Each structure stands twice: as C-alpha cells, then as structure tokens.
C-alpha cells in the first residue's frame, strides 16, 4: 500500500486492522502484530475494572473455525493505558481502543478514564455474545439501546468513535443507522456469530466451560459479507469489514461490498501474523491487474 487511507478522519498507512480480542492483551503483542502488516490495531476490550473472564476452556477449534467465550477478561483501565501507550510509542499503526461496559454509564466512564493520548479511535464493543448470563442481551440487539450507548459515549471523548455490531440481530443496517444518527464516526462489523456450541462425543459435555461461544473463522465469511453489504446501503459513515477473512479474495470481497478497511482476527490461526502483509500485497496486485484504484473498489458491488 503506497498511499494512506483516511478512515473516520484518521490516516491508516496500511488497510488491514487487527480485530479486537486477538493478540490484544499486551503492548508487545500488538506491536508485533503491527509488524505483520496491520495498519490498525484493536486491543482486547477494556472494561473499567479488572475482569477475570470465564474459566478455561474458553476456545475450541472446529473444522471451519473457532468458538470462543473468553468472557471479556480485562486488566482494567489503568493497566490498559500503559499497554496502549507502549503501542502508540512504538508502532506506526492506528490504535483502536475497544471498550466494554455493562451499562451505558460504564462505557462513558471507561472512555473518560482512558488517557486520550494513547489511542486514535474508540471502538464500542456492544456486541459480545458471551456474557448474556451476566448482562442480558447485548446493546447491539436493539436500535434503541445501541443508539443510547453511542450518544452517551459521544460526550466522553472528542476522538472518533466507531461501533462494533453483531450479526445476530436480523436487520444490522437498522442498528448501523441508529448508531450513525447518534453520532458514530464508523462501524465495525461483524462480531462473532451465534453463540454456537460444540459437544464432546464421549462425555456428551459442551466443549466450552461457558457451554456456548461466539463463532468466528472461515465459516462466518458469507454472513460477514452480507452484513457489510447491508450496512453500506444503510449508512454513509465508513466500515471496517471483518468476519472469516483468511485469504486475499475474502478481503477483496469485503472491500467490494463496502468496507473501507478489512479486519482479521481468527485468520491469524491459519496464516500467522504475516496474514496482513500477504493480503495487502495481494490487494495491490489485484488492483494493478484490474487497473483500479483502492477507492474505486470500496463498495463497487453497489455501483454495478
């Protein structure tokens, strides 16, 4: 990628983004991933106070992906400030601080307690499917509650705020529009699908301690492509498209349906952190072959 991409007013040097929840606990880990070619790094969702998360096993692999229920473990705001400062000081990647709260006010307080010099963009994680026992339905499952969180978060920072949406609500475009109307600067889609379940065939027990977990990986690519297609039609704010991307062709499809940037999470399981470099190079080659500019490709499906 020789040119920068402007997303929500922030310049990205490369067009891949590390998804929240993957290799995002420590600064060192995020810096290393940026070296694999990610232009934006999203940390694991930060909650105001320390959260232990669910007991292991929290992740299980199946033939076409992964289910996980890490349960939003977080070191809390103070420690996260230190880890993100390390990334900000030692990497050219855009730092996206994912935040999580059990209530609207907790979202606001968490953002306020974050040092605004350690991140470029706030991402509201209102779509984790793995903490329903604790918090009930995710905010992303209703236009009203999604827009409430967004509106309250807006007052906490002047930096751009993007909202991460769930594919588990039937009309994702409606939620995206509600977020845009409440002041969102962008949308990240999609979070994990489901939740899903896997069973051990000898013990007949669920393979996760939490019994159920969000589904990610290649299995969910078509759902993610469709969701981003719907969101692009519903809003004018830019989209980070993710969900099941493991190959160049997946990322190209995501951009073609309207993603300004593509994201990778579980894809690292299949191709390591260099997946970003591989996909970026592949996109460049594709654009040259097709004689297209990057901006022409974004949302091209809708112009046919």
């Amino acid at each position, binding site marked *: 990628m020789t040119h920068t991409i402007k997303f929500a007013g922030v310049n990205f040097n490369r067009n891949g983004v590390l998804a929240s929840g*993957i*290799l995002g*606990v420590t600064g060192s880990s995020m810096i290393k991933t940026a070296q694999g070619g990610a232009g934006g790094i999203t940390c694991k969702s930060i909650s105001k106070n320390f959260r232990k*998360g669910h007991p292991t*096993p929290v*992740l299980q692999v199946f033939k076409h992906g992964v289910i*996980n229920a890490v349960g939003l473990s977080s070191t809390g705001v103070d420690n996260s400030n230190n880890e993100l400062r390390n990334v900000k000081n030692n990497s050219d990647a855009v730092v996206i601080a994912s935040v999580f709260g059990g209530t609207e006010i907790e979202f606001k307080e968490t953002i306020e307690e974050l040092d605004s010099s350690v991140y470029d963009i706030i991402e509201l994680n209102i779509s984790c499917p793995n903490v329903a026992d604790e918090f009930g339905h995710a905010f992303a499952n209703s236009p009203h509650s999604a827009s409430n969180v967004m509106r309250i978060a807006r007052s906490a920072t002047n930096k751009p705020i993007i909202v991460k949406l769930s594919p588990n609500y039937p009309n994702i475009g409606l939620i995206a529009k509600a977020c845009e109307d409440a002041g969102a600067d962008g949308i990240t889609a999609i979070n994990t699908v489901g939740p899903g379940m896997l069973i*051990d065939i000898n*013990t007949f027990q669920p393979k996760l301690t939490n019994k159920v977990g969000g589904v990610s990986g290649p299995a969910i690519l078509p759902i993610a492509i469709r969701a981003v297609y719907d969101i692009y039609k519903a809003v004018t704010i830019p989209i980070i498209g993710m969900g099941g991307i493991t190959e160049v062709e997946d990322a190209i499809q995501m951009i073609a349906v309207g993603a300004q940037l593509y994201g990778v999470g579980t894809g690292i*399981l299949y191709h390591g952190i260099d997946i970003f470099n591989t996909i970026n190079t592949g996109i460049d080659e594709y654009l040259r072959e097709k004689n297209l500019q990057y901006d022409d490709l974004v949302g091209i499906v809708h112009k046919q």
Partner: protein
Amino acid sequence: MNNLIEKSYKTFRVDGCTDQKTFYFKIGKVDIKPGQFYMLNYNNSQKPFSVSHYDGENIGFTILKRGNTTLHMIENAKIGDYFGLTGPLGNSFHTEQYTNFLLIGGGVGAAPIYFLSEYLSKINKKNSVLFGSRTSSLCDFTHNLKSNKSATVSYYTDDNSGENQGFVTNGIEEILQKEKIDTVCLCGPEKMMIVASEKIKKFTSVPIQISMERYMKCGIGICGSCVLDDIGLRVCADGPVFDYELLITSKEFGKYHRNSGGLIEKF
C-alpha cells in the same frame, strides 16, 4: 489443523503420588516431538501440559499439584475417565544437529526433559540428565531412564531425600568438564534456568535451549495471554522452546509473568 481440534481419550493408567501424577492415554500414531505440549481438559478445567512420555502409541502427561485445575485432576481423575486433548502444540527442542546433550529439569520441568531423554536414548544420542526437585518422590517417574545406556542421570533434592542434596545447578560443572556437550536443554523455574545458563556460559558457548511456561488461554497462538515482553513472541505458538540468547532480550524472563487476567505477577 487436526491437532487444533480437541478429542477426548480415556486415561488407561495413572501413576504417581498424592502431589504429582502421570496420566496415560492411547492416542495411536501421531508426530510428537520432545518439548511439545497439549491442552488437557478434564471436566471443564483446562491447562497446557508438556508431553512427558510418548512411545508411538501411548502418551503420558506428568502433572504436579499447583492450582485448582491440577488439584482437580490429581484428586479426582481416575482410570477410565475422559480428558479432552488438543495437540501436539508448539515447537520442540532441536535435536538433529547435536550429538551430546546436557538436559536439566527442575521441579515438574522434569516432564519434557524425561521425554527428551527417552527420545534421545532411542536414537542412541548421548545425554547427561540432571533432575532437581523438592523431594525425591516427585522424580520417581523418571527412574527407568537409568537403564538406557546412552543416558547418565543424577538427582538433586532440597530435602536430601535422594542421591544428592542441593540445587540441580550443582551438577553442571562436572558434566561440562567430563563430556563434550554440544547443546543444553532446560526446563524448570526461570530463576534456576538463569543461574544454570550463566554457569554454562562460563564454560562453553554451546546453544542453550529453554522451555518456557506462561499462562495460556488458547494454546494455539491467538489469544495473546502468553506473549513475552517486549519481544512479542507467543510462548504457545512461537515457543515453548526458545534460545537463551533470544530470551535474555525479553525483559520479563526470570522476572515476571502475567496471570489469567493479564496482570503482571513477579516471580
């Protein structure tokens, strides 16, 4: 990718004492190398464990009572119970280019060292082994190594219940003077591994291979719980075996690790 998918196996043999047990499973033919580990899941309690035995058919894991998961396994798991196994995971000790090994296992770090010694003796490579533990019964599972003609094995205990009293590092000098060692493989408490490595460096510049332990959630390289500061390497997927020269560039080696919530805990 099949190694990443959990499969459950019945344990058919359990050895050991009240503090430490070895569980065996019939898994058939799998490509497993010394230093690799599995995620073991017993009744929804899961942790990573190094392979301590594999004979081409049966695999063994030696588990020391340390926290809730290991306590649960040691006190409750019995012959016939199922464990979920995910693996083999991670890299392994380099063995091909070397001919004469010094192996050091401290505490339950003896587990992968035991498998490594078994493996080396099978391919007739000379290995001198030093085991250190707080009491001799914790090393009982390794006693049959002495019958291999390629292996020389010595034991050190804190409570003088075994061959020699004192630190496992006491035995290093004699072996390095006697043998033409061309690599050293270590697994155990980090402070011990640092003392051992510094001692070895005074005698020789042979490669020192260190098997590391960190809190792991996924074991397959994506959660980020076991990443080393500041080198950014994952113990589960880039390790667990690292070269000493690389490890000393990590600021946490021998000093701290992170707990399940990602918080720093000093050693």
